[in-house]
């Protein structure tokens, strides 16, 4: 069987201790929450931290506070199952509940956390392979090699952000609070992600995700549509999170977020522009879908071919927006 590399496992009880432990370990340290992303990756030697800072004993990371009207705050260590079953989330932020239920399998949802989901490593089928396999392709730029096999000649890595939660967090306008050695800071979910398969999160390694702050619902409605090969188990090959706030008939504000087609989940400003000021009807929806489709640039590093995945952007934006239009 594939075995984990050896590491030291720490179990701090407070967020501050966790940050201290990570800071002490430096580049040799990593956090682990549910471990459903990190441990498989360690078995494949993508990450080989000498020190793993376990977060399961840190109570404050499992807290929940606030309300849909005032804004709901979720601790990053809540499991996907807990988030998907939370009555407030289900009522006021159903898109997030749906995203959690669409992640992998129910078994994994019992273990994986929402924080780990937002900080998932990027994926690529030249990368998510064991060490011997990667040796056979002379490794790649993301780990141990120089070339990007998806786009040889490219100066960057195109690994895909495959989180189902991230596009929804952006569509909901979530803000993320981090604790570092220098104290706390908050960023919008949108600003956390970078268009780079290697340095995919704008955060320092020792910064600890402390809270996920969902803004007041305030007339917003959001949804999430996921495309994958099978009804369970699979990462998205495309995720579309869409949110609109309407003013009467017209769309006052819109967020259309595409996941799993780039190294970061991103807002399609073009699609949003096609909606704002219009009624949500077949014409505006088609225009928004076309606007999202055109610049979408999936790479050949996930399941399915890239041409089809690109084409599906149109289909799934239409589906998501129709759902918002017709939704109960």
């Amino acid at each position, binding site marked *: 069987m594939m075995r984990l590399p050896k590491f030291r496992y720490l179990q701090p009880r407070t967020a501050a201790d966790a940050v201290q432990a990570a800071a002490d370990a430096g580049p040799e340290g990593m956090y682990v929450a549910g471990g459903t992303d990190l441990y498989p990756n360690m078995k494949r030697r993508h990450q080989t931290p000498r020190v793993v800072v376990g977060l399961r004993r840190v109570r404050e990371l499992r807290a929940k506070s606030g309300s849909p009207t005032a804004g709901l705050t979720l601790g990053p260590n809540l499991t996907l199952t807990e988030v998907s079953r939370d009555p407030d989330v289900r009522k006021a932020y159903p898109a997030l509940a749906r995203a959690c239920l669409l992640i992998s399998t129910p078994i994994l949802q019992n273990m994986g956390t929402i924080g780990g989901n937002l900080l998932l490593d990027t994926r690529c089928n030249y990368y998510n392979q064991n060490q011997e396999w990667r040796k*056979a*392709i002379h490794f790649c730029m993301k780990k141990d090699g120089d070339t990007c096999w998806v786009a040889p000649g490219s100066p960057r890595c195109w690994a895909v952000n495959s989180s189902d939660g991230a596009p929804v967090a952006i569509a909901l306008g979530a803000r993320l609070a981090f604790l570092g050695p220098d104290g706390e800071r908050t960023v919008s979910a949108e600003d956390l992600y970078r268009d780079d398969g290697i340095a995919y999160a704008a955060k320092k390694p020792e910064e600890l995700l402390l809270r996920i702050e969902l803004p007041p619902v305030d007339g917003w409605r959001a949804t999430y549509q996921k495309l994958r*090969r*099978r*009804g369970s*188990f699979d990462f998205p090959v495309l995720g579309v999170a869409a949110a609109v706030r309407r003013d009467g008939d017209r769309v006052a504000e819109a967020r259309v977020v595409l996941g799993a087609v780039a190294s970061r989940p991103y807002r399609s400003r073009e699609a949003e522009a096609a909606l704002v000021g219009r009624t949500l009807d077949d014409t505006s929806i088609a225009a928004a879908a076309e606007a999202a489709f055109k610049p979408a640039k999936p790479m050949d590093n996930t399941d399915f071919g890239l*041409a*089809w995945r690109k084409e599906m952007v149109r289909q799934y934006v239409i589906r998501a927006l129709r759902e918002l239009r017709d939704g109960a």
Partner: protein
Amino acid sequence: MAGADKTLRVIGKPVRRVDGRAKVTGLTKFADDLFLPRMLFARLLRSTEAHARIVSVDVSGASKHPGVRAVLTGKDLPVPFGILPVSEDEHALSLDKVRFVGDPVAAVAATTEDAAAEACDLIRVEYEPLRLIADPEDALAHSEPKIHDYADQGNLHKVVALEFGDVEEGFREADLVREDLVFFEGNTHLPMEQHAALATQDADGRVTLWSSTQTPHYVHRALAKVLGLPASRIRVIATPNGGGFGGKSDPFNHEIVAAKLAMLTGRPVKLTLTREEVFYCHRGRHPTLMAVKTGVKRDGSITAMDFRTLLDGGGYGSYGVASTYYTGALQTVTYRVPRYRFRGARAFTNKPPCGPKRGHGTPQPRHALEVQLDKIAESLGLDPAEMRLRTLHPPNSLTANYLRVGSMGLRSCLEKVVEGSGWRSKFRKLPEGRGVGLACSSYICGAGLPIYWNNLPQSGVQLLLDRGGGVTAFCGSTEIGQGSDSVLAFMVAEGLGIPPADVRIVTADTDLTPVDLGSYSSRVTLMTGNAAIQAAERAREILATHAGAKLGVPPTRLGFAEGRVFDVEDPAKGMTFAEAVVCAESKVGTVGTVGSYSPPPSPGRYKGAGVGPSAAYSYTACVAEVAVDRGTGIVRVERIWIAHDIGRAVNPILALGQVEGSVYMGVGEALMEEMAYRGNRFGVHKIPSMLEYKSPTTLEMPDVVTYLVEDPDPNGPYGAKEVGQGPLLPVPPAIANAVYDAVRVRVDEVPITPEKVLRALKLRAAGKEARVGPTRFPDVPWPEAIRVPPPWEGGDGRAVAGEARAAERGAGGRRQGGLATGVSK
């Protein structure tokens, strides 16, 4: 047999399988569950090159690594082996070259798994890369560098051509001649349990190997050959397989390595493969390109068929020669094909070797044929079910290629699925986006010939009767989840009139059990079953003689049922089964019997006639109903109706499990499964993981309505035929035909992915031919065909003299292939 007409008490009843409780409670010991004191752990270092000469292997670092007890390289095990005597082209560890990424090069045994893995990392292998042969087209274009030296031509491992009657003449008689090109992608078995082996050597030098294998007898032979030990000093025990599906039917390098390491270290050695390594073992479905040309009369009756196949064999022979013949063998047993030509070629390529997967070589041609018949029916304006019903092969007759069809229940199968699915009210009548499709198939119940030539029984059963009333049945058959242990117990219980719980079974142990060739070719129920019946009958005779003497009843009047031996004319008069054993034992000593089975000889006498013959053929008909999303091309199989002519269901629950499992596998092959490689990126397997090799989950599994058609076959035990493989065959073509019914596009290629469906839909929308599939069959240097006149043209099963010899010269004048490729004697 005696008492064949009596009511059956076990056979046909949903008795719980003998290993059921252990399996669901986790008590079953699979190979990796075994631990022995002082056991070492072994790992293989595998090639990171797809095609290369090995310049040097430096193991000095590994040997010095703490915990390491032994390191092996190719020269430690230089004797070649392979499942077929005509293609013994494997080495336990590559000797001088590697042939795919994943080919094993060295092995380490250490006190921990970690130490073994770390030591593997310290082994330095220097390779001199050779040009990669990516696929059959590449192999045809490049005869150099040769992957193996012994191929028929360049990198074409095997090229065969057979003709039964004048096919061109047959096409001239036809009202319609259709030619189709169809591609069937390769896929793999994906058993839940990875292969694992544990070996140990005792104080007297005897070696024991426990392994998750479907063929302990063949592993036994390979070990003897490679280790250079007499077979009598080697014991192979097949542990219950956590699924095999054909993927554990070859003798494997890791088995030999574990045994060798145990001999070198004097300690038990276990070697469990990782999931990636299971993908490298492979031996799965050959990717097959097919050109099928069929001539038909207006009523759909076939006048002639010409079939060409091109198989991508991967890096080694494995069962490939047999697989190649199988792509041409069974087209003739479902519908009357008066004239038939088959040409098949298998290429060596730098990928894990292909071999037998459920249906071995026959699902691909079956797919092509059934899809083509759907098109032909449409051209002729016939209902595809009606057309098939009119052209069924008659029971108890010979086919053009000299296969002897016995019982033939396809008519009932077709009627069942047509009726059950509401075919007549659905076909071409459902709203756009929904459709139904139909297909039929047939499969062998055990290969007529063994892998290596011999005229010995193919299955043996030994019974030991205990004076306490228990019976132990010994048999080499191997439980791979299909229920063979249960079938053995049921057959013995039925034969002796005792409850299955009183039968203890000892199976798949070469020290203890008579040879059974293994769990492949759907042979076990029929062959082991017949051997068990014979052994039980002999035991009854002994018991009846002595119990009869005591009771004063003629032995022929004694019945055996419910644990008693009694006078059938006065059932009150009798004794318990245990008393009958005591009676016999007191007269003749220990009571034991043996039974064995060999399938009937086949009438075919031409080179290649060894592949296809079987004691009986099972038949299946299937209707699939699908929904196709026109925006995405995603196909959902909503429901499958499937009828299988099983002769007799030995146990209906086990049979249903096999049918549903076959449907599951068929759905996966039809819609998503794919052994994909990156030919342009060093030839690596694209996705050797259970996450990214896409196989259906329960959510993709359609509802299945199963009909078991029971038309007992005189050659089957209690009339039983196979059910383990046949029901897979019609599933992919039924789905392909249903997709056409739903959206009028043809995807002449499996898997039928959403991408292909959408591409075809676009072609349709643009007014072009709404088809996605291969467009070209490359030129293959076929040898002149071996001509065999069919039975109705006065043939006697032999090739026409002279031409046959010429054909052999054409094929390179090789005599190899003789026995194991199945030339019958």
